[in-house]
């Protein structure tokens, strides 16, 4: 099969089936007919089409278990598809984890050679790059120490340094930018940008919308083993959060006396309905309350919880909604507020209480929304603090930072 010019990676209606064994295969059982271990099939990917041109940088997002890892395995040539074809046009450096093949008993120097050769370099090529690799990892004085004495940061730095110097035509990166301290992250990021400018194809899997936004013009969303979206990154990110919210919503179990029901929850930002909030923007929570019975002066209670269940903010009516509502009535509730949450996943909940504060309707999961942290800030709320030294605000190139916001974002669906 000949490569069409300019295509770096291609999946053609690729499917990957795994067998899920009910129990471990045992030789004796598989020899005796009618006593075979039962197995169920599980399609990790199905009918996936994707073409990545040479020099493109593409982000991949999706929940855990959506098929991202399987896709990376296929692109790395580690496994073969059950249906369809995978086309790989060039030497691939899979950076699926840092420091593959590192052995704790061997020195940093020996591990650089082992790791480098596993990534497809020859001994001579490693000789030529050795000093650069060590300098990049900032490990000059530790390079002959067994890596078991390295801190986890040093270990990661060395692993990343080898991979990033292996000079591939295609670089597959799986959530490994979060290595070392912020200064080293910045350095890795700069290096990725250099490689990108050099015309290397990069496939970047991350849970961090911040990192994806900074690196990838195009993003693919994988959901349930199929392509849910392929296009511009800002649109893709919103789509990603919409999928997350929908799935969360399906799991939420509302409860109450069934006299009242809340529906059509949405959050409206400056550009319309959204699940993903920028910081310090005016937004409006909107929902409908349906009455199935006659209710006198009900109370509305709006609450914000962090994804760990911490109560962050609440606002409620004191005297109740004016008037009496008959069965079949519907009202629309709008709650505008200034978005000053920190970077995290939040649940926006709207409960309905009766005159005596007994719940008529308790919102289950509520509406799940995501907030990107302001780079350099963290926590449940954004106090919009500044750091001023001798009267001068510290001005950082925040667009390059992958700081705490990135790490926090990675926790979303793990």
């Amino acid at each position, binding site marked *: *099969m000949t*490569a069409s010019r300019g295509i770096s990676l291609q999946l053609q209606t690729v499917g990957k089936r*795994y067998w899920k064994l009910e129990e*471990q*295969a*045992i*030789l*004796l059982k*598989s020899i005796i007919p009618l006593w075979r271990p039962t197995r169920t099939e599980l399609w990790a990917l199905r009918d996936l089409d994707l073409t990545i041109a040479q020099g493109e940088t593409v982000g991949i997002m999706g929940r855990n278990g959506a098929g991202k890892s399987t896709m990376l*395995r*296929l692109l*790395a*040539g*580690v*496994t*073969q*598809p*059950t*249906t*369809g*074809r*995978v*086309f*790989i*046009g*060039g*030497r*691939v450096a*899979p950076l*699926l*984890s840092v420091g*593959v*093949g590192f*052995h704790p*008993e*061997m020195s940093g120097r*020996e591990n650089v*050679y*082992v790791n480098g*050769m*596993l*990534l497809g370099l*020859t*001994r001579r090529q490693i000789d030529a*790059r050795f000093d*650069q690799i060590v300098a990049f990892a900032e490990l000059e004085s530790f390079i002959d120490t067994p890596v078991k004495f390295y801190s986890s940061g040093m270990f990661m730095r060395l692993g990343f340094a080898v991979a990033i*110097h292996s*000079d591939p*035509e295609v670089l597959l990166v799986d959530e490994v930018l979060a290595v070392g301290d912020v200064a080293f992250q910045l350095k890795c990021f700069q*290096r990725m940008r*250099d*490689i990108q400018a*050099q*015309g290397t194809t990069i496939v970047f899997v991350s849970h961090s919308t911040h990192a994806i936004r900074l690196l990838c013009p195009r993003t693919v969303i994988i959901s349930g083993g199929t392509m849910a979206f392929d296009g511009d990154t800002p649109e893709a990110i919103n789509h990603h959060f919409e999928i997350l919210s929908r799935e969360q919503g399906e799991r939420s179990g509302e409860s109450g006396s069934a006299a009242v029901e809340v529906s059509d929850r949405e959050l409206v930002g400056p550009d319309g309905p959204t699940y993903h909030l920028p910081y310090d923007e005016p937004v409006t929570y909107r929902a409908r309350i349906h009455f199935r019975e006659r209710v006198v002066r009900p109370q509305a209670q709006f609450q914000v919880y962090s994804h760990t269940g911490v109560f962050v903010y609440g606002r409620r009516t004191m005297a109740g909604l004016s008037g009496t509502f008959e069965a079949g009535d519907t009202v629309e509730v709008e709650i505008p507020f200034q978005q000053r949450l920190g970077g995290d996943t939040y649940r926006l909940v709207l409960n309905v209480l009766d005159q005596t504060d007994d719940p008529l309707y308790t919102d289950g999961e509520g509406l799940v929304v995501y907030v990107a942290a302001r780079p350099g800030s963290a926590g449940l709320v954004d106090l919009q603090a500044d750091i001023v030294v001798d009267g001068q605000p510290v001005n950082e190139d925040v667009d390059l930072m992958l700081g705490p916001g990135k790490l926090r974002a990675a926790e979303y669906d793990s």
Partner: protein
Amino acid sequence: MTALAERPAAAPSRETYSIGPEPRTRREWLLDQWAHREVLVMLARKQFHVRYKRALFGVLWAVAVPGIQAGILAAVFSHFVHTHQGYSYPAYVVAAVFGWSYYSQTLGTGSTAIVDGSSLADKLWFPRSVLVISECLAALPGLCISLVLLLILLPIFGVGYAPHTLFLIPAVLLLVAFCTSLTLCLSALHVYFRDVKYMIQASLLVLFYLTPVAYPQRRLGGLGPWMDFNPLTGVANMFHLAAVGRPDLWATNLPRSVAVTGGVTIVLALVALEAHRRRDRLFVDLL
């Protein structure tokens, strides 16, 4: 960023290929093996270094363990079995035990190599056979050192160097070829059935006594000739031959036993080739 500048902007793709659901051809598989020869040697070297790195006496243990085993066997068997009839019994035992220890080591580490290497196999592509063959290579330096020791011991055991000593070379080649083919087959099977590991452990215990390693085949009377159909007999006999010569004193039919080993080795190698070329990229799904 000088390293980046070195590469021409539009470097031609060296490795362009496509992967479909079908198994690879034999040619593709063999070419892939060849392309990964540097990785193979590097992994073997790593295994060898790591194995003895923290031991004070290092690689000496590779010799000491089979040496002690051979010493005990030689002492026990020569005492109870009265085998010394025209050849040096200690030399006879020591040579074959050194060969046996290579067999038991490669079988133990090689047949589980694909499963044990899952952290590598899951992240990077290389033919999985590389993991297995590298184990067989990593055990070679130990074998070589013990054979040097054997050559030193021969005069002490009262056996001089003779033309038959040169049979050590084909003996080693036959041993390595047999062990490599066998572990390649078993490693593929082990991915599917983890019982293989324990079966091997059990079989090593039994086979040691079903193979004329520590006693001469001829002493078994009518049972002796049947042992020629045990593929390990041919290997053991080659080592005996190199050490003491005179196969008429201890073997029932030396050429036949060696031919059986050779034949079995070829069959195993073909089975291994088929198993690996068909399943190479699917092993990882079961790890």
